[in-house]
Each structure stands twice: as structure tokens, then as C-alpha cells.
């Protein structure tokens, strides 16, 4: 369960990528059916552009510039269109989407994530379309320190609990994690973060945002609540 690979906790891209990768793993393990349509369209656009450029290179190399310049002009135009379409697709259709799928109950779930530069907080947007077509959007903003320990290992339990608690559709599919919060956690250090009350986490999150530094700090990683409290206060001051 705990992770295979260590990352640098000061590298925001690493934090985000590792977390992004964990979402499909988790949801698919709960019986969600993932849809790859967005990725496939992006790969299709990208690789056709790549193939076109490779062809242009080949005929230019083989027949020279003057013999092929009209063909090259057409290829350049099409390449520009394909690349423009790809850019639009990524910025307007994908919009940071890391997961699209259908829950065991039949609801469509779409999860997109983002981070702000130099702020170690994970912004998650969950769009749920129920079978009746009703749309619902949930937002979760949490510091990465809740599910990365100080060595940079990804800890699955608090991360999954975050989704199970925050998103009812996921909670229904994973009742154990959804309940973990209320009953108080006995899951050792791995789930230490979930031992905090939501208020405390908010204070911690604000403190982390305010200081604006990629501080994972010992506070969240160690189990003892007293230490955590002190750590939080000190940082706030």
C-alpha cells in the first residue's frame, strides 16, 4: 500500500504527478470503469502531427527542397492546424482532467486537478453526472503534506480517505475509508493525518498557504497530536 517510489517533497510537479497517478489506481480498484477517450483523442492528434512532420522530413531529405516545396507548404499548414487543435483540446476540453470514468452505481465521474505555482496545495475538482443527467461539482483543496511523509513516500490511506469522505459516490464504493474518519483512526502512522479534526486541517492548510513555502514539515508526518499542534502554531506565528 505504501509507495514504491520516493519523490522530492520540494518538487511540486512530482507531488502532483504522483497524486494524479494514484487517482486512477484507487478508483479502478473500487470497480470504477475508466474512460480513456480524452487521452486517446490527444494522442491521436499528437501522433498524426508527428507522422506528418516525419513524412515531410523524409520527402525533403529524399527529393530536396525545390521539388517538394508545395507539398511542404501544405504539410506545414496542416501541422499548424493539428497542433492548434491539440493545444485547444488540452486547454479547453481536458482542462487538467486526470480521470474520467463510471462508478459502479452508474454515475459519471470526472476529476481534474491543479496546483498553483509554489503553493503545495492540491486542488481537486470532481464533476459528477448522475444517471438522471443531474450535474454536481465538488471541490477539494488539501495540502500535499497530508498524504506524503517527510521522506517523500506516498501514503495511500489518507489520500484515499480524502476522496472517500469528500465525494459521496466514491464513499459509497469504499465505505471502509469513508468511515475511517468518524471512528477515529487506528491505522498507525500511515493515517496520522486523518486523526486531525477538519478544523485543524484547515488551520494547517491556511498556515501552509500563507507561508507560501513547500514545507511538508514534521507536523503532519509524525503521529503525536501534541507535536503536530505545536508545529502548526509555530508556523503560524
Amino acid at each position: 500500500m505504501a509507495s514504491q517510489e520516493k519523490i522530492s517533497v520540494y518538487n511540486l510537479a512530482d507531488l502532483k504527478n504522483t497524486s494524479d497517478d494514484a487517482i486512477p489506481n484507487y478508483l479502478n480498484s473500487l470497480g470504477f470503469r475508466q474512460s480513456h477517450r480524452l487521452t486517446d483523442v490527444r494522442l491521436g492528434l499528437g501522433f498524426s502531427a508527428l507522422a506528418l512532420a516525419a513524412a515531410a522530413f523524409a520527402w525533403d531529405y529524399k527529393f530536396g527542397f525545390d521539388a517538394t516545396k508545395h507539398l511542404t507548404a501544405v504539410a506545414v499548414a496542416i501541422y499548424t492546424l493539428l497542433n492548434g487543435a491539440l493545444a485547444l483540446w488540452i486547454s479547453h476540453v481536458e482542462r487538467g482532467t486526470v480521470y474520467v470514468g463510471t462508478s459502479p452505481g452508474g454515475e459519471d465521474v470526472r476529476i481534474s486537478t491543479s496546483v498553483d505555482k509554489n503553493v503545495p496545495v492540491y486542488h481537486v475538482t470532481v464533476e459528477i453526472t448522475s444517471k438522471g443527467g443531474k450535474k454536481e461539482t465538488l471541490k477539494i483543496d488539501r495540502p500535499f503534506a497530508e498524504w506524503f511523509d517527510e521522506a517523500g513516500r506516498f501514503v495511500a490511506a489518507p489520500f484515499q480517505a480524502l476522496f472517500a469522505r469528500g465525494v459521496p459516490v466514491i464513499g459509497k464504493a469504499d465505505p471502509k475509508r469513508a468511515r475511517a474518519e468518524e471512528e477515529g483512526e487506528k491505522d498507525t502512522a500511515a493515517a496520522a493525518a486523518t486523526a486531525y479534526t477538519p478544523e485543524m486541517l484547515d488551520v494547517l492548510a491556511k498556515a501552509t498557504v500563507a507561508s507560501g513555502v513547500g514545507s511538508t514539515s514534521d507536523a503532519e508526518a509524525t503521529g503525536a497530536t501534541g507535536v503536530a499542534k505545536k508545529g502548526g502554531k509555530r508556523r503560524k506565528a
Partner: protein
Amino acid sequence: MLSSLQNPRQAAAQLLNFGLILSTAFMMWKGLSVVTDSPSPIVVVLSGSMEPAFQRGDLLLLWNRNLFEETNVGEVVVYNVKGKEIPIVHRIVRKFGTGPDAKLLTKGDNNAADDTELYARGQDYLTRKDIVGSVVAYMPFVGYVTIMLSEHPWLKTVMLGIMGLVVVLQRE
């Protein structure tokens, strides 16, 4: 990084990102070629024969279309000579006739004699089709990197080594 290779879509996406950097650079070059109608629209000055106009290492932007008027005396052009690899940047000093068959003579501003010595054996003049383009803009000194790289091949090894090191250290 390595774990992402287990997922074929993610591996394909990473390959795509890398490929698109290369292909976009190539297509931008080709786009410039098509617009300027020149097989090599940007060249680097290799000799001092056009001083004081151009120094070694200057980057030149060429234009190879005659939209309004023909290529005329006084223009600085880049031309190729049959059997010689390296294009030459010199000024047109004489022109006989008009149209695509006009006979052109070139000379380097800093050279004592005209270019008949430089042409192929038995060739006394250039025609329009020998010309790769006329110089329309230049950027001083920027091209010196390529001169350094071609004259000191070991620099290429050093540069590749540094780039490889950066890639390994950054992992992204």
C-alpha cells in the same frame, strides 16, 4: 518515471511530448523555408570577406522571392557553387541582362578581387537560380556558437554530456 512506462498511454504521451518538441522545431524551420522560398533561410557568416558589413558569426535572414523587383546590383546574396559544400555570402557588383538568365558577378566587400576565382571550373558568372536568397536582416554574433561547434568538435561532446546530465538530474 519508470513506473509510468507500465502504462502504455502514459508512455505514449511522454514519447509524444518529446517528439512534438523536435517536430515543431523542424516544421517551424520548414515553414520559414516555404515563406521565404529558400531551402536554407537562416545562415551563419563563416568568413570575414564581407567586413565591415558582416563579421564572422553573424546570423543572416534570407529572402528568395522577387515579388516587386529582380535581384539587382548592390544586394548581398548567398549563393551555392556546384561541387562546393559551403554557401557564400557576397555582394552583386555587375549584372548583364534581365530575367532569370541575367548574368551576375559577385564580390566580397573586403576582398581585393571579384569572385570568378571562387566559381566552379569554367564558370564565369552566376544566374538567379544559383542564389539561395538575399540578406534582409541580420543578428550580430549569435551564430558564433555553431562556428565554435563545427570548428571544435569536442565541444559537441561536452555539450551533449551536459544536456544528458541535466536530463538525468531533472527527470522531467
